[in-house]
């Protein structure tokens, strides 16, 4: 069985103690989205400002919850600030893949078989997760995956609203 040191890494506790980009942004111009984990009552609010070029110029995080949901949202905010919406979406996919959630596998957009996927993905730079790698240990605690992905799902909602996919 995995130990607590796999879960509560120092960088996670640091983001939990001192969350980055904590607060609110004025809406509009910012877009606001809320996410809930009905299981434990955790709540994340994500605000993003997206400019004409499709760049996320500012991010703010509100809400409350456990160390994993809050630190994950904090790291996410630091990682996507200044990124383009497209890069942020790629980061969401890469993070969820690390959490063993592969959204393309079920449903998907029906545009191609799985065989085509690696080629397409291979054309792009691999996404660098940086500090977010610290959350990799969460996979060993399946109940907590929902905590780690709460902020990311909420970010996706905000991105969909601010910059609808064409």
């Amino acid at each position, binding site marked *: 069985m995995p130990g*607590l040191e796999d879960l*509560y890494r120092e960088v996670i*506790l640091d983001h939990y103690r001192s969350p980055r980009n904590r607060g609110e942004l004025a809406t509009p111009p910012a877009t606001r989205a809320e996410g809930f984990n009905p299981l434990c009552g*955790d709540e994340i609010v994500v605000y993003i400002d997206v400019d004409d070029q499709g760049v996320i110029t500012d991010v703010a995080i509100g809400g409350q*919850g*456990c*160390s994993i949901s809050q630190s994950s949202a904090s790291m996410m905010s630091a990682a996507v600030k200044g990124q383009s919406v497209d890069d942020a979406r790629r980061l969401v996919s890469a993070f969820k893949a690390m959490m063993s959630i592969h959204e393309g596998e079920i449903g998907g957009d029906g545009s191609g078989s799985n065989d085509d996927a690696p080629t397409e993905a291979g054309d792009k730079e691999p996404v660098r997760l940086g500090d977010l790698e610290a959350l990799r240990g969460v996979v060993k605690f399946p109940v*907590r995956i929902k905590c780690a992905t709460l902020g990311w799902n909420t970010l996706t909602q905000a991105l969909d609203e601010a910059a609808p996919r064409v």
Partner: protein
Amino acid sequence: MSLRPGIADEFPVLTRLVDGKRLVYLDSANTSQKPRQVIEAISNYYETINANVHRGSYRLAVEATAALEGARARVARFINAPSASEIVFTKNSTEAINLIARTWGHTNLGTGDVVVLSEMEHHANIVPWHMLAAEKGIELRWIPVDSQGRLVLDSLDRLLDGASLLAITAMSNVVGTINPIAQLAAAAHEKGALVAVDASQFVPHVATDVQAMGADFLVFTGHKLLGPMGIGVLWGRRDLLDDMPPFLGGGEMILNVTKEGFTTNEVPWKFEAGTPMVAEAVGLAAAIDYLEELGMDEVRAHETRLTAYALRTLTARYPDTIKIHGPSEPAERGGVLSFEFGDVHPHDVAQVLDQAGVCVRAGHHCAKPLMRVLGVPASSRASLYVYNNEADVDALADALEQAADIFSF
């Protein structure tokens, strides 16, 4: 001190090790563990009887029917119901409350009629009434709860004025508060309201007498009472049950069916469409036998002692860190201890405790309105039952130290 020597060994799962550590089960308010007697009663039923009930003329079918109806009579005696015909088997407490709302409520309540609840209800005793409110336009009123998790009864008469039903828990699943049901029932009846009691947390822990309580309906579930999952109980006054329309339609609940329509069976079968949970009923009866052999008064005394020990131990070990919700007086509460541990989130508390083999629940405990009153989004909850003793409380207290270490800020 154990309720009786070696009692934990009578529960096979409690002999299990978790990573080499003793399993410390402190989540009985969620579901209880099962003694060997209950597990054997269920497997014995399948090994020696199993047949469908009320419809076969052969030996097995007769014995299966006797087992089901015997369990019904056993339940009736356990809660001092006047007649076994007033015992309706359901899937769980939730289904039993939905049955009341969908049949009695649907028939008797309309726009502007009032159902009174309390702020400490489980979602199971809130959402069915919200659903009825959306459909029928009934009004919901709420008995407030104070910061110690006790009902505030100053405005009870006003709340009950013109009410048709008081639907209330006998014991909070979050903070353990035991409510004065007999007093509340008398006040409700004075105003012409019926009383439905959610006794899911009460019946497993305190001797229950539905007639002395003055209840009109009472529900509980088997799995919190050492019995199997999948069986619950609705008790209702016979005259009320007789007047209520059926719940689900199908076999068993009819006397006759034609192409034009149907006539309903008598109570309780009127409310039991389809093949019932016979093995689960047998398991429930075995659980009741087990509890009565222990003695419900001894069960309550043991849990009150252990609750007092837990309140004392946890506050002595962590005077500045722990805040335990609910009444401070053990006699006013059951063995349900919801707590905050410093700033450590309940989810993290439960995770750290799990590593030490200690099982507690974290979250809002399906009682979000109460959590709002307590001013917290979630809590950790340790809950006690017949197989727990002081060593389990000590294990909880020890394991909390690691939470303090990891989240020391």
